[in-house]
């Protein structure tokens, strides 16, 4: 059977389809058999592709992996990989949407806390790999203090995430990280929401629980709201909260 000669782009698109959804592309027609079926040869690459994605997700989501077990994790990760192939070669940034994926993943429905634990792990992963950046220089604090609150906007440190969980995902996460089965058994998944701040302080990642008003204030600022707008959303004590955030290096710059 004569085979048309593909352009490089046609070939790469065919191989990509074969790796992401096998059997649906003409890639095998372009491959020499030499005694081994083309699909077997292509499968070597597909296996590497799939196992690399699963491994990247396992590294980013060790707590989810422990909670569901290796076999379940691998199955879910493979389906996630088909739905969300990586968009860049920096695999530490791969897997942001696993929490959303798990919330719609029927086999995980018996673990209603799992999506929030996954979202927390993603925030931890982002904090681990965020670029190094010094907090706002103390020499600029006087300028910050006299800035017009209606125009003052702060730039958060890239390691900071504000996360609202419907379940105490932090307690579950901490118990699994510490391999503390008693603490895990003691978590009441129905004990209400958790308002969390995740950051990399010095070299360690911290998961802090904030009172809801303090969380809303920080979330407003991190989302780029003007200070006055965040204050209106917040309540008494906001000045002290802001001072804490600045002292902890959670903001790196401001515009006024």
């Amino acid at each position, binding site marked *: 059977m004569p085979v048309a000669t593909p352009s490089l782009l046609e070939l790469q698109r065919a191989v990509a389809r074969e790796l992401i959804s096998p059997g649906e592309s003409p890639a095998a027609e372009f491959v020499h058999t030499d005694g081994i079926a083309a699909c077997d040869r292509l499968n070597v690459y597909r296996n590497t*592709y799939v196992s690399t994605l699963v491994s990247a997700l396992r590294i980013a989501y060790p707590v989810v992996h422990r909670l569901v077990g290796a076999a379940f994790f691998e199955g879910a990760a493979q389906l996630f990989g088909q739905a969300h*192939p990586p968009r860049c*070669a920096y695999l530490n940034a791969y897997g942001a949407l696993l929490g959303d994926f798990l919330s719609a993943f029927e086999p995980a429905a018996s673990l209603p806390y799992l999506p929030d634990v996954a979202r927390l792990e993603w925030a931890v992963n982002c904090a*681990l790999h965020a670029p190094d*950046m010094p907090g706002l220089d103390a020499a600029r604090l006087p300028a910050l203090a006299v800035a017009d609150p209606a125009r003052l906007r702060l730039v958060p440190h890239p390691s900071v995430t504000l996360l609202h969980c419907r379940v105490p995902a932090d307690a579950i996460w901490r118990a699994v990280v510490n391999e503390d089965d008693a603490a895990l058994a003691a978590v009441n998944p129905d004990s209400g929401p958790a308002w969390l701040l995740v950051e990399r302080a010095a070299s360690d990642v911290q998961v802090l629980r904030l009172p809801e008003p303090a969380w809303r204030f920080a979330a407003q600022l991190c989302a780029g709201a003007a200070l006055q707008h965040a204050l209106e959303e917040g309540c008494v004590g906001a000045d002290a909260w802001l001072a804490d955030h600045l002292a902890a290096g959670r903001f790196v710059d401001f515009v006024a």
Partner: protein
Amino acid sequence: MSASASAVPPHPAGKGQIPAQAGIGLRFRHHREVLDSRPAVAWFEVHTENYMGGGAPLGCLDAVRGDYPVSLHGTGLSLGSAQGLDDAHLERVARVVERVQPGLVSEHLSWSTVDGHYLADLLPLPMTEEALEVVCANVARVQDRLKRAILVENPSSCLRYRHSTLPEWTFLAETARRTGCGVLCDVNNIYVSACNHDWDASGYLAGLAPQSVGEIHLAGHSVRTLEGGRELRIDDHGSRVAPAVWALYAEALALFGPVPTLIEWDTDVPALVVLMEQAGHAAGLMNEHGNEHGHAGRDALAA
């Protein structure tokens, strides 16, 4: 048509240059041990993609770089992409290069990205004039951005395309000739591909210009037996260097002279002492076989 080699500005030799000795691929599990014990290793190579964020890994690499020459080996640039390079990824690479000031920067003769999808493997290219032009344009772009020559590594492969017209060694040598890049000669990959495709491994080595070879990689591979008894060799970097690969390495040294040589181990990474023992074996072969030639041209590739 040819992208001129002289388009790549030369850069000075100096501290941090990778010596023509045996180094080790540094993986996370050995960071602490290397920093605590400062073992007698000539140089280290790391995967560029592992240091694109901040925090502890980059801090460790800074500390290692203070005491050892370091080479950056990338896996994500996709030099063979028909649609060109991912600008954002090239910028990430450039930031790591600027930070680490490595002795060598290398990537692979392969592709992994199309239509914005990263396929997380080093996929084989068709050996065609079209692909050669794509690779040369992408290599030239990387070298322009990094303001230095890079090394391009020969892949291992377990498939070939029907419409390929060039031998892989000719493709690689021509890439070096047209762009001024160097060759990272992975001897294990040559052995693996030669077994999988019934090539002459010695002929592959002879097809490369000796002065273009700036580094050698050595690693272990595995053998997978398929239904029907046919075998495919897989370059999994999960074991000691095979005896046949050591023999091919000796041939390479006789052809190329002493070349910075790296022991790579990525799957089931063993104790550092095992890697040092493998590096010691490479050093012994370098003493035995590598001293017939001098290659001043190679100096232009090092920082």
